[in-house]
């Protein structure tokens, strides 16, 4: 399994804007070609839904939700990180299931 650290793709310790998501998404998509991926938020400070929304939209534009279940894992540095990504994931699922 490949472990990727969000913090390695940021210019600073925060992930507050959607414009910071593409390099992370690109690295995830590349690594997924070779197997399971764990993306860790450890070491990142503030994270917004603008970042996590864009990150998930970019990753799941190329894969269905089912296709990445069990292949992409997330690890978090704080409960707020987890909650923020969880909100984006739920919103994305709703978006994908809406006609």
């Amino acid at each position: 399994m490949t472990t990727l650290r969000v913090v390695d793709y940021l210019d600073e310790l925060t992930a507050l804007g959607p414009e910071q998501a593409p390099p992370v998404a690109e690295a995830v998509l590349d690594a997924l070609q070779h197997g399971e991926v764990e993306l860790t938020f450890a070491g990142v400070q503030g994270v917004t839904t603008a970042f996590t929304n864009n990150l998930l939209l970019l990753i799941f534009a190329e894969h269905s939700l089912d296709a990445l279940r069990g292949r992409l894992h997330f690890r978090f540095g704080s409960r707020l990180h987890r909650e923020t990504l969880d909100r984006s994931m739920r919103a994305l699922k709703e978006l994908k299931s809406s006609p």
Partner: protein
Amino acid sequence: MRVRIAIDFNIDETVNSVYMLSSRVQPLFVLRDAPHSTRENIEVDLSACDYFGPVGVAILCLLIKDLRAAGHTVGVIPPVRPKLKAYAEYSGFAELCWGGPPPSFDHPRNETTPIVFATQRRDSEIRRVVQLVQRHSAMNDDMIISLQALLGELLMNIQDHAGAEGVMTARWFPSDQTVRIVVADLGMGLKNTLSRSYSVRSDRHAIELALSNRTSSRSQSRNLGEGLPLVHTMMTRNQGDLILASGDAIFSLIGQGRSPTTRLGALGPQTTLPGTLCALKFRIDHDLYDDDSNDDESGALEW
């Protein structure tokens, strides 16, 4: 013609203050929005005001800047009280309004971040607020992460939805260990923004929608409508205060221990606030996760 507006009351970070100030400057909002009005000579008199904080600075700075940009002459009579004059300087209000000295953020006793005008999220300003609080109080990692996320969410809203320049200003209050932050704009407002994607009946309905999960203006493809609900959740957990005002409606969450009170209603008779104002009273002394829950932050996220 001379238009004179006296701010002869105090402006705190409360629902009543947002109403009082919006109501008093209502004629100036009308002037600002009248494209062909004659150029007026406006005087804003603060000499009888004993206190104003970030709410007063945000609304007055935005309004005065807009009025001047529209060609009106705006003079401001400064407050008299020395403490308030000092705050006006540190917040950048004095420099903008009566050509006072520029703010000196690096002064060791400074408790204010100077007002910043922006149409884009600026992470440097978010860092400044965190730096200000850290200067006065020890913050744990959860606090830092939450404060950065809160500010990031609010500034993203200006960037995505305001359609106008917004402001952010913050002030540290040692007496109750809170940082009071206002992010505001006099732009489109929540109702107009959400009307792109929803049938919005009123400003009150717009606030209700904005605080609901997964209500997004879809102004950008990446918007999934999670920002303001997350702010609401975080402020509830913080047991702090949150005020969200737009048009003729205002929402408040007043943290009172474990029984916060929320209210959504009219701003006040014949009073509207253009754009959107969000005021936070964030408690630094409060543990955000005091429930000892087994919520494992490091575990995998299932979907």
